[in-house]
């Protein structure tokens, strides 16, 4: 007989995987929480250059918080209790997953992208911070709601084990998470203020690789690449800056648009007109990030290593950093 457990779970497509998983799990449990809300309360917005690490033989920059952190902060600030489990043994990981499905409990999983067969080949890199929801099992196939996909999909037993136990940086180790208890009413107001304060603090942190300072540092690195590296390497590095900015669904703004959407929604909830103004400003900053990506892509498309053009994109970044510095100072005062 074919074993079958299907949980009545509604899939909503999201721009980014982790926000999407959290938002979908919350909606499943009867709380209407939008994706930008999760991103904002969980302080997802970031800029950070990660030293000493190379991915695809190029330096690493990130525009959002570490995998798992958004959910962790979101849960803490809204009073949702959640359970997180990691496993050393794939068998235990599978058993716990099956157990949860039997209990009618859809769970979030952190997975590696390289063996996700439903992704286009070109997107399959050794990147271990992807998130999805498993909401059922049909025979030996697990039913998957991957927030970046338009539709739900499925993976076989073996395939799922592979992505759950991918290796390399940020190895998921079968990481599984789900909410276990909820407050009677979600207190958004306080959570939003906390989320905003935290983001402002990180973006303005006096550390050279983080936030606004990190953007300046990156601009400085870009200026040096055409002098210190050969054309190909310099182009490859610059491409990586854009590729990291352009994870699926960021629309070119390196998550700035999602944050602007969060500010707009918060303006209404907190009855704070200032946040509406700031949302508009953040959208404009997002547009500048887009312009930066367009300009950078011109360089690596033409395979040029003119110091001038590298300086030009670096100038754009410095300008963005200056604007963001003013922006986050204002935002801090607005709440």
């Amino acid at each position: 007989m074919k074993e079958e457990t299907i949980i009545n779970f509604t899939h909503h497509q999201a721009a980014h995987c982790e926000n999407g998983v959290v938002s979908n799990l919350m909606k499943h449990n009867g709380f209407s929480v939008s994706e930008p809300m999760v991103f904002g309360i969980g302080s997802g917005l970031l800029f950070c250059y990660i030293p000493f690490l190379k991915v695809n033989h190029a330096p690493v920059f990130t525009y959002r918080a570490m995998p798992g952190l958004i959910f962790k902060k979101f849960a803490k600030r809204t009073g949702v209790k959640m359970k997180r489990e990691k496993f050393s043994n794939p068998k235990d990981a599978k058993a716990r997953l099956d157990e949860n499905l039997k209990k009618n409990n859809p769970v979030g999983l952190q997975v590696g992208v390289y063996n996700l067969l439903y992704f286009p080949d070109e997107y399959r890199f050794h990147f271990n911070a992807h998130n999805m929801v498993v909401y059922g099992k049909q025979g030996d196939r697990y039913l998957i709601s991957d927030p970046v996909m338009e539709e739900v999909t499925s993976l076989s037993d073996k395939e799922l084990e592979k992505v759950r136990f991918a290796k390399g940086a940020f190895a998921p180790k079968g990481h599984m998470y789900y909410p276990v208890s909820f407050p009677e009413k979600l207190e958004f107001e306080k959570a939003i203020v906390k989320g905003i304060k935290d983001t402002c603090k990180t973006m303005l942190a006096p550390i050279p690789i983080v936030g606004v300072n990190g953007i300046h540092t990156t601009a400085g690195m870009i200026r040096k690449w055409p002098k210190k590296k050969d054309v190909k390497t310099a182009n490859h590095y610059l491409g990586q800056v854009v590729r990291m900015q352009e994870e699926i669904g960021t629309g070119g703004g390196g998550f700035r648009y999602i944050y602007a959407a969060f500010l707009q929604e918060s303006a209404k909830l907190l009855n704070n007109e200032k946040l509406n103004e700031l949302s508009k400003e953040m959208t404009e900053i997002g547009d500048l990030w887009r312009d930066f990506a367009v300009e950078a892509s011109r360089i690596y498309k033409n395979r040029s290593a003119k110091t001038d053009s590298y300086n030009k994109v670096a100038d754009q970044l410095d300008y963005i950093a200056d604007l963001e510095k003013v922006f986050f100072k204002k935002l801090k005062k607005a709440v």
Partner: protein
Amino acid sequence: MKKKEVPQDKSNLESANFRELCYAVDEDGKYTTANSSGWEPKTVALNNAIEEINERIEDAKNRVQKGETSPIEYCMELHKMDVGILASYVGLWQWRVKRHFKPAVFKKLNNKTLQKYADVFEISVDKLKKLE
């Protein structure tokens, strides 16, 4: 970004038949979502990265034929890995993996170690050896 500016360029997403979701503002300045089929600057960056990987694969292949490296390095490149990632998959120290790139060392590897590599690359030990 305005909703009508959400890029609809050709991209590799097409092959998997999905479009990504983006946040953008509508005409009243309200945030909403729209699907995007792709964006050229991103596609170019991605294609360049793929091209770079293909060059690395080709280069490793040539060096295997010239007897300068072992098939392990070739397979590593083929699977878009670097030494760190491969080492964590086979459960060996990085310096040992690097040592196994030497054709002379590769020839003397025992079956157990070869099997570890073969499992990661999803081929048989025989095939791995034959790549030499």
